[in-house]
């Protein structure tokens, strides 16, 4: 009975000051909406990156010199094509082993040029990494064996160098050396702001000759099955360590990469949510402020209610409900606004956004909690008012 009255009075109080209630709620609405939106963007980015890492190909094992960890300095690779042969023997199938040696270089075609990443690779790359071609063909074993000067262009490079011509059969110059275009990749799009179509694949042997080196930067292996992927990694690392006792090697799986990326993006999402949380906090302070005004305005009413038998708790609960109602209504509205904006952003902008139920539950829970936290002080103040003083207030 008392609680029902408290609800009724709280609702009535909000209705009596529509403008003030709406403005107070606006603070909470903006806070909750920004939490929902920014968490959605963080989550969407994470999901997209995960998709892309998984899209690299399944059961992928990347073998690189040095430790793969965030913030570790890169190590100059001691690996050569002989090591690649050794890894192929461990794997038992050369078709599952890919390599890369990468460097930035300017590609020229006629008067046009494009600074891009040149990758020296084996003919196995499309199998290992699940890449497909839009036009032409990929490198062959013969191309690699004979260091043939042929190139497969990423979609962006093809567009930059041959905006109005078919690139197939055309000549491009990489570091002054001519290559013939034999294929163009299907576009991949962007990942973490990096254009994945900005690359040129040439035979690894040709690349080594171009840069005057024997090394390869890293080896990728498509494991035959997921269960023994870690075991295979250990065996590859053991073999490489035997061949290069001075160097540490790591074999990482997609799961591990996802884990590291997930951690980074999780922190990012957390930071975004915390920044949005600050605005929610400011909204909460607004609620606290307006509740103090409300208590002051209704001092005489509080005095009267106490005179006719309201206990301190009855008064406290009444004002606490008013605060919780303010933030809950604001929270629900803010959730709607946040979800709507997130969907809009996801649709009309390249920024991905994904709504998760936990973020909605969190946003609503936090806004209700803000109501309680910031309503408690005004409510206690109301509950403790001396009825004699309260009745005298003007």
């Amino acid at each position, binding site marked *: *009975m*008392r609680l*029902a*009255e408290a609800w009724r009075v709280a609702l*009535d109080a909000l209705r*009596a000051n529509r403008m003030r209630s709406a403005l107070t709620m606006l603070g909470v609405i903006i806070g909750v909406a920004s939490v929902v939106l920014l968490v959605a963007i963080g989550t969407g980015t994470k999901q997209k990156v995960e998709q892309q890492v998984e899209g690299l190909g399944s059961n992928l094992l990347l073998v690189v010199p040095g430790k793969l960890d965030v913030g570790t300095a890169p190590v100059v690779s001691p690996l050569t094509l002989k090591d690649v042969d050794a890894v192929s023997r461990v794997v038992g199938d050369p078709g599952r082993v890919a390599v890369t040696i990468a460097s930035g270089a300017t590609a020229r075609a006629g008067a046009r040029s494009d600074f891009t990443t040149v990758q020296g690779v084996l003919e196995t790359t499309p199998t290992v990494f699940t890449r497909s071609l839009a036009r032409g063909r990929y490198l062959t074993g013969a191309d690699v064996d004979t260091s043939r000067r042929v190139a497969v262009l990423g979609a962006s490079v093809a567009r930059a160098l041959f905006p109005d011509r078919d690139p197939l059969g055309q000549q491009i110059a990489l570091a002054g050396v001519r290559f013939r275009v034999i294929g163009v990749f299907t576009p991949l799009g962007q990942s973490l702001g990096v254009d994945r179509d900005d690359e040129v694949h040439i035979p690894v042997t040709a690349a080594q000759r171009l840069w005057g080196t024997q090394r390869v930067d890293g080896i990728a292996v498509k494991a035959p099955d997921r269960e023994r992927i870690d075991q295979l990694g250990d065996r590859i690392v053991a073999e490489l360590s035997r061949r290069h006792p001075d160097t540490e090697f790591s074999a990482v799986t997609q799961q591990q990469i996802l884990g590291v990326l997930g951690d980074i993006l999780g922190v990012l999402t957390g930071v975004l949510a915390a920044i949005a949380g600050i605005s929610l906090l400011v909204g909460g302070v607004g609620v606290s402020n307006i509740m103090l005004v409300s208590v002051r305005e209704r001092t*005489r*009413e509080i*005095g*009267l*209610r*106490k*005179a*006719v*038998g*309201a*206990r*301190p*708790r*009855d008064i406290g609960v009444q004002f606490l409900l008013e605060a919780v109602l303010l933030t809950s209504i604001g929270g629900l509205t803010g959730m709607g606004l946040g979800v709507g904006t997130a969907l809009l952003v996801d649709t009309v902008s390249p920024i991905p956004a994904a709504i998760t139920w936990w973020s909605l539950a969190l946003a609503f829970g936090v806004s209700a909690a803000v109501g309680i936290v910031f309503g408690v002080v005004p409510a206690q103040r109301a509950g403790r008012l*001396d*009825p*004699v003083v309260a*009745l005298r207030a003007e």
Partner: protein
Amino acid sequence: MTLPVGVPAIEAVDVSRTYQLDGVSVPALRGVSFTIDSGEYVAVVGPSGSRKSTLMHLLGGLDRPTDGRLVIGGRDVATLSAPELATLRNETIGFVFQAFHLLPRTSAVDNVALPLVYRGIGARQRRDRAAATLGRVGLGHRLHHRPSQLSGGEQQRVAIARALVTDPAVLLADEPTGNLDSATGEAVLELLERLNAESGVALVMVTHDQEVAARARRQIAVRDGRVRSDAIHDRPLSGAVGRPATLDGAPSAEPRSVSGSGPGHPSGGSGGAAGATGRLSRPPSGRTAEGVGGDEPQAGGGS
């Protein structure tokens, strides 16, 4: 709330109230003692600054004495927690204020029902009781009007209904006619007196107006935080205009022991005696009939 026989509505023994203002003790009430029995009609009279408001707040359980013993409805306020005191106010006291203190956005019937909310009574029953009580004060046709749609006299009658709806032992009226013109004030006083006569609720009226005070059978005069006199008039004349109020035990009044029942005086002694006087003398009194009879115009709809 009907008190058990022999339990005075209010019993004050050497009650003092001292305020702390910026670290300085300001004595407001200094050793006040008296007993008010159920059904009594008492005027607490004194000029402004006489601390009669402080006294009213204490009698209504809105404040506690710093010293002395104050028993309201058989319960010593010193032993009660804040929530218990709130419950005591709800069950024992009905307040009527000079400024009415109605909730502005709330209908008459819901204003009257307010005390029942804090008694945990269901909405339907609250409304029924509130409507019936509004009928008793002659406002059965004004249930759903808001205070702003009512005249001052009607507002005060709503406030009286609110005070009465809990069936209290004591009706505490603080300058109930202070914000009303004299004709409306007269009607309100007659209503209060009729309710006092009908239902046996003790009526304690705090006023600075000697004329109003003179209507009460018993007058407690307060000055400078002390009881100056406490006198029962044998035949107070209803609406006796121009009749000087008697202070300090004038010949027409029967003096009561005031300063005599000081600290340490057994409460049973004077309290019991006063209780007997109050209970026995009220019903056969001719004034009661007169009061009801004179209330005809407003009381038509009364139950």
